Structure formats: structure tokens, C-alpha cells
């Protein structure tokens, strides 16, 4: 089976580096975007199996990115893990309507992120 492709979007490059190193070491193919607009374009052209996105990003916020992906049937089903600032909570309505399956607050544990990724992908595979 080809390795799963994961799109990681965050305007903080150190987060991109940490997350992609962790995921690459676990055998995933990783593509990165440093703002919401770039992430949207990459999601459309690359069709990742999973999106990990920060909430606070220039151009498009993480939530706007998810809303845009939801509008296009080709990208509507990409499961999403959202990274947020500690203490920040999204409305459950926003998360449920936009395919945001999990939320992790920064600073998150990369190990925990990896296990969350595996859970979300397993759930997506079971649902397909």
C-alpha cells in the first residue's frame, strides 16, 4: 500500500519541521504549506489523505481553509486535525460541519499527534 499523504499547514516553520519529521519518520508522505491559501491550493492539487492545520494563519485561517475545502466535493472528505492555541476552543458546530475531527492545543506532544493521526486515518479507512 502506498504511504498516506498528509498535508501540514502552519505559518510557524518550526511546527512544520517538527511535525513533518515525526510523520516522515513514521513512514508518511508529508507536504507542507506555510499559509492557508497555499494549503488550499495544495489540498486541491495533491488530494492529501489527511490535513493537519493551524487555526491562526495568514491569508486564510484554518477554519476558513476547512470551509473552502468543504465546498469542493473533491476535497470535502479530507479529515482534519486542527492545532490551536492553548485555552482556545472552537464551536462544536464549526468543527462538526467542517470535517475537523480532532483538536490539539499547542504546545502539543508530537507523539500524541502521531497517535491521533493514526486513529483518524484508521477511522477514515473503516468508514470508507
Amino acid at each position, binding site marked *: 500500500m502506498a504511504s498516506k499523504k498528509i498535508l501540514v499547514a502552519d505559518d510557524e516553520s*518550526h511546527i512544520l*519541521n*517538527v511535525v513533518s*519529521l*515525526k510523520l516522515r519518520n513514521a513512514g508518511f508522505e508529508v507536504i507542507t504549506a506555510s499559509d492557508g491559501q497555499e494549503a488550499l491550493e495544495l489540498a486541491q492539487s495533491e488530494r492529501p489523505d489527511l490535513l493537519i492545520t493551524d487555526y491562526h494563519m495568514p491569508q486564510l485561517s484554518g477554519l476558513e481553509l476547512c470551509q473552502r475545502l468543504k465546498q469542493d466535493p473533491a476535497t470535502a472528505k479530507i479529515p482534519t486535525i486542527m492545532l490551536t492555541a492553548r485555552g482556545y476552543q472552537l464551536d462544536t458546530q464549526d468543527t462538526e460541519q467542517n470535517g475537523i475531527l480532532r483538536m490539539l492545543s499547542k*504546545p*502539543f*506532544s*508530537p507523539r*500524541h499527534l502521531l497517535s491521533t493521526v493514526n486513529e483518524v486515518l484508521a477511522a477514515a479507512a473503516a468508514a470508507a
Partner: protein
Amino acid sequence: MALQINHHIAGSGGVRGTVPKAVLDNLATRFRPAGLFLALLRADGTILFHDDSAGLFFQRYVLPLLQYEDTSDSGIKQQLRTLSATSPVTVWNHLPGVILAAFPHVDRRQMAGILILAAKSASFKLSEEVVRVCSRLGLDGIWLNQQAEETPTFTEEAIQRQARMLLAMMRDQVRLSSLEGELDSLSGQLANTYEELSLIYQLSGGMLINRGANDFFKTACLDVLETMGVQGMGVALSGDAAHRQEPVLYGPLSLPPGTVHRLSGELMPVLFHRKSPLLINDLAKDKTFHWLGEHARHLLAVPLQRQDRVLGCLFALEKKAGDFDSQDSKLLNSIANESAIYLENVMLFDDVHGLMMGLLHSLTSAVDAKDAYTCGHSERVAAISRQLTIEAGLPDALAERIYMAGLLHDVGKIGVPESVLQKTGRLTPEEFEQMKRHPQIGAKILQDVKQISDIIPGVLHHHERYDGQGYPGRLTGENIPLMGRIICLADCFDAMTSNRTYRKALPLEVALTEIRRCSGTQFDPILTEAFLKISVEKFRQYMSMRQEQAKDMIELQRNLQPAPAA
């Protein structure tokens, strides 16, 4: 042929000086279309890398020539010997029909290898010499000539230019690749820092003062176990904190009984003196802890200390991968620092809480002491109310508040004259009115203590009746605050089972029957059900509590009587 493949990750101990294979592959691909062949040789002539996708002219003719043992002065090995770390790009054309550009690959001012760029020389023809080489290599000269015709030709100047370009590109690429390695290594370190940070956040979130210290340490140990990748993670407390928690070890590592106690007993004095982490990576050879060697290899222990006071220690046993290092010790130390602050706070909280409860008990004893017949009454009502709350399936936290309300329910009797409280006969209607004011007086006494404002309804309404015939509010049913309904039951039960000036104490069975009879009129029927489920043993305990308290009181009163004149 030995090909050295080196991923060249900074700090991972890769072989020094070798060029990453990915870099060489990349460069070879760039020079191949022009008709150039890339190889990396060791100074002794061993080929470390060569372009394995090059054309047949290179694969079958040039590469074997480079490997060919030739002891004459024009052999490749002799040529290689003329190079040093400072040599510029040098062009050699001693191999028949082939032109080579060579330059040293320098790492930390040492020559770590020789880069060779090879091409077909302008002078290539099927000469006698080429034919001789062909027969030595088992090649057909005509076939080689055909291959050579498809291979571009290079002059000395042209290949030198290309080699200089290769040199510049290679320096860039090596640098780039080492930076990438460094970035990965930094990202790896950063990932560790994230793990630690998120662990510390998680721990701080669990530092609830009213949560038991052992519950906190259990979660902390399990979290550290995972983050640090160890087989066993334990905690031991000492001194003032020792009674809160037996030494304990969590995780898959199982030790024989008594080992954890022995370990914590021996660790404590060591850490008490060190006041810094203790890191042992070969327990079997350790002077003090060698006895632990048969169960684990590694031990990392850090003191739980506040200022100079050591409250205990955290210890990790048996790291899964590798040895403990300074990073582990830093992590465990910061967790110990956080935990020590928490532990100290819990101890301070308990001190203050203990002081408050002590004062409350003194206050209620003072009230009860006004009347020898009611001695210990408040304590018992408090204990029975708490038991009833638990029996009714209500939260433990509420049970503790109700205990406090039970203690204070009669505090208003301070404001009732002793002549009324201690009167042996029946009360006159005026006296009874005075007596009936004690719930309101109690509520008033407590009203300014905002920390216990939640228990005032229990004090104010413990004489209400379910049917509305009680006082002071004549409230009915569920309108009576829950605390009032609970304390009412406990209060009446204790009154019935105590001696009074006008009657003897009722036996337990009679009292319980009476309680049942009054369910729905005096008492909340649901709470009555719960009350009657309290076990007989529990009731007997409360009654024996009374005998102890009464004995103490008689003793006290006897001691206070003036000694008979001699």
C-alpha cells in the same frame, strides 16, 4: 565493491568526510547528459561511488580501467598519490582514449577522497593500445568503437571547466545536505522539547489541591513513563509528607516485594545530601545500588525539594532505548520541581484545613459542653449526616460540606440561655420560643464567613418538617434545603438514642422504627429510605462514639470539682 552510503545526519555519528550518496547521485545525474562520468575514489584507489546509470562506454571501459591494477608510473593509483588536500583541479590523460579531471574532496582540511570526472578524450581511436586494453578487459574493440562514437568528446579545457563547476556544486550540495541534517536534528530536539512542555502543561492541569497526592503522582508517573520511554516510574515521599503515599512503582517493570521500599529507603539519604539528580546507567557496577542490578540497568532519581527541604523523590528505572542522558535528567528534574510545589501546596492546604476543622470542633464542643446531655451531639450528627449523604448516592464533596454543616447545626444554642438549655422539666411556651430561635441565631453567627455560606441552609433549616409543621420557615417537602432535610434526620436519630433529662435513650431498633413511622410527615421519604439502609454496625459505631465522649465529659467534670478539704 564497497559503496559507502552515508545519510550524514549531524550528530548521528556518520562517517566523517564522506559525501552523502544522495548528493553524488544528484550530481552524477546532472553531468551524465553532457557525456561525463562521475566517480569518487579513496586515496588508495578504492571506488567509493560511481555513476551506475552511465552509458556502456563508461560502464564497460572507463570504470574497469579505473579499477585496473597497474604498477607502472602511469597507473591511476600512482596518479592519486600525487594529490593532496590543497591540489587544484588536475587533468590526466594517461588512460588510453580517456580524459580525467580530478580534485580532492576536503573535509576539515583533510583529503577525504578524490572526485573524478571522466570523458572520452578527443584523441580516442581504435589504436593498438586501446585494442590491447580491450583484450585485457574481454571487450570487442569494434563494439567499443561503436559505443565511443555515440559518446561526446571533451578537450582538456572543457573538462577542467566542468570539473570546476562540479567542485562548486558539490561544496554547495554538501553544505545543503549537512544543513538539512542539522535541521532534522534540531527538529528532533524541538520535538522532545514539545513533548516535555506538553507533559508539564498536562501535569500542571492536574494539580488540583483537593485531589489526593497519590492520585496526582500516579497520573504524573504514567505520563512520564510514556514520554521518557522507561519501564518503571516511581515516587517515594519522606518526612512530613511520608504519610501521604507509600513508595510505589508504576509501569511494566515488576520487582520482588519489598524492593521498592528498600530502594526508596536507600535513595532518600543519598538525594538528601546530593539535592540534585542521581543518574546510574550500570546498576550492577554501582557501589550502593548494585543489588538492583539484576532487575534493571538504569536508574534516574531526582529529589522533590522546596528550598532546602527534601519532601521525597521521583525515580525512573530501565530506559527502553539507550541510556539515561542529561536530557532525561533535566526533564525529570523539572517535573520534580513542579510536583514539589504542588506537594508543598497540598501540605499547606491540609494544614490550614486541619486548623479550620480543629477550630470548628472546638467551637461545637463549646456549644455541646453547655449541656452535659448533649455532649458530642454535634460530632455525631455531623458523622451520621455525612454517612446519609453518601448512602443517598450524593457526591463526596457534598458529603464533606454536610459534615461541616452537621458540626455547626446547633451553634446558635450559644445564644440560648443555659437555664433553658439545661432545664430538667418541661419548657414553658416562652422558653420553647427561646429554644426555637437557635437555628436563626446559628445562621446569623455564620453569615459573615463567606467560605461556609453554602452550609447556612443546613443550619437554618434543620428543624423544618416535611409536612410543613417545622420551624423557622414552615417550609414543606422539597422546599426545605437538602442539607436541612439530611441534618434533620441525623439530629432526630441522635436525640432519640441519647439520654434526656425526661427519658432514657431509646434502643436502636425502636429509634429506627420511629424514623420509619415519621417518613413523609417529619422526614423526606427518599432520604428516610437511604437512612434505613445504613448498616447496623455503622449505627452501633455512632452509639459507642457517644459512650466514649460521655466518659470523657464525666472525667472532665469530676476533675473540675473542688478537691475536698483535707
